Structures are given as C-alpha cells and as structure tokens.
C-alpha cells in the first residue's frame, strides 16, 4: 500500500465530516424560526448594556503561555522520532537526548525561577 492510499481515507473523512456538519447547519437553518430583534442580538453581559468593547488588549500572560507552549511543542516533536528508533540508538540515543533535554531543562528552570510558570 503506498503512502497516498493510506491518506486518501483521511481526505475523504475530512470531506465527509465537513458535509455532515454543513448538512446539520443547513437542516437547522431551514427549520428554525428567525425573529431577530435589537435586544435579542445584544451581546450578553449579565443584563447590563455593554459600555466597553470586549476586544481589548489582554494580559500578556496568555501570550507567554503560548510562547512557552510553542517551545515545548517543538521539543516533543523531536521526541517522537527519537522514541521510535530508541531501540536502535540505545545508549547513544539516550545520551544525545539527555543533552538536548538537559539544555531545555535549563530554560524550564529559568522559567520556573523567574515566575513565568506562575499564573498569579
């Protein structure tokens, strides 16, 4: 089986899932009533008219979490192929990944020390 044969079902599944989802939305759109009015289409804020805009600048912490995530994400990406062939690399693999992770653990420790991992 070639690689494309294995991936064709994935593409088909994507299309099927999209069609099913769209069909659900479309079916509901045909059936459900639509009686919009001004009050109904206000954004919810506990019954009070909103005075300030919701789309505002947010705490930088969210950004920091995303940044740290990207770093760790890339790190785990390196781990996956390594884990697969660890039985070939053996001690060599252990040491090279030890160095790789060791360097990252320094960064992790730095993040811990500076409080970047504390939300509050």
């Amino acid at each position, binding site marked *: 089986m070639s690689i494309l044969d294995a991936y064709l079902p994935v593409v088909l599944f994507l299309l099927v899932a999209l069609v099913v989802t769209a069909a659900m939305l479309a079916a509901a759109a045909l059936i459900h009533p639509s009686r919009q009015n001004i009050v109904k289409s206000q954004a919810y804020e506990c019954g009070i008219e909103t005075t300030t805009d919701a789309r505002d600048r947010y705490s930088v912490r969210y950004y920091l979490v*995303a940044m740290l995530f990207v770093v760790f994400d890339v790190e785990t990406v390196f781990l996956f192929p390594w884990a697969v062939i660890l039985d070939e*690399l053996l001690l060599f693999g252990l040491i*090279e990944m030890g160095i*790789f992770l060791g360097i990252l653990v320094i*960064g992790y420790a730095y993040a811990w020390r500076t409080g970047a991992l504390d939300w509050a």
Partner: protein
Amino acid sequence: MGTAIAFYILAALILTGGVLVITAKSAVHSVVWLVGTIIAIAALYVVQHAEFLAVIQVLVYAGGIVVLYLFVVMLVNLKRPAEAIVHPQRRERTGLLLGGALLAQFAAVAFYAFNSPQVGTAATYSARGNVEAVARALYVEYLVPFEVASVLLLVAMVGAIVLARRDA
C-alpha cells in the same frame, strides 16, 4: 497521475489561501486563512511522501505558532490608531524593497533547483516508514544541528520570558 492531480489542487488551494491571507480585512481573518494555507501545505508534503514533515507542519505551525499569532493579533488592539507612522511613503518603500528581495530569493532558489542534480528523496524512504528515516537522519547524521536546535529553543524561551516580564 493521481499525484499530479493532487499537486495541482493543493497548489491552487495554497495560492488562494495565500492571497486571502493578505487581502483579508480583519487580521483575525488573515490568521484563519493562514491556518488553511498551512494545512494545505501539509497535504502537499504528504503528496511528496513526507508524512512526518506534514504532521509536524500542522502540529507546530497550525497548532502552535499560529495560535501565538492569534494571541498577538488579539493582544495588540488593532483598532487603536497607529502611533508611530510618520511617513506613510516610507512604509510603502520598505514593502517594495522586501517584496523585491523575496522575488530575488525565489528566483535564486528556482535557478538552483533547475541546475543542480536530483537529490534522491525516494531513496531515504524506508520500508518501515517515514518517521524512522527522518529519525535516523536527525539523530545519527545531523546530530550537531539537532543539539544546536535545543540551544535555539532555550534562547526562544528565555527571550519570551524576558520580553513578557519587562513591564509586568
């Protein structure tokens, strides 16, 4: 045959996505189109038998870096008036310059690709799968770049913390 059809469909999707990224009015819409483009590129990798690269493309770019973009787009409120644009023409000039540089780079890559001997990608594709080929290349042949990558990640992490902590 099937590969060719897939290639052209995906290439069309990627180009459309790319155009939508730069023409979308809202920055958030741009980010959404960027995700679509990245996924289409990932599919193109699969067609090129680089399935590992494809999932990594989705996992790291679509699932990580673009989330970061989205946060940035949300973080810096784009509705605020731009503060520091003194010369609008300067921005245009910079844009033209960068665009030109990019085109030159494309030309160079294309020129190089046409004039160099074929690199055997298929040869490295082993029977037990793509991941192992990548793994072997990464952890045996390119050991030093791999270890250097961890330093790069360390710098990224420290840099992010320093930047974010500056005012907080």
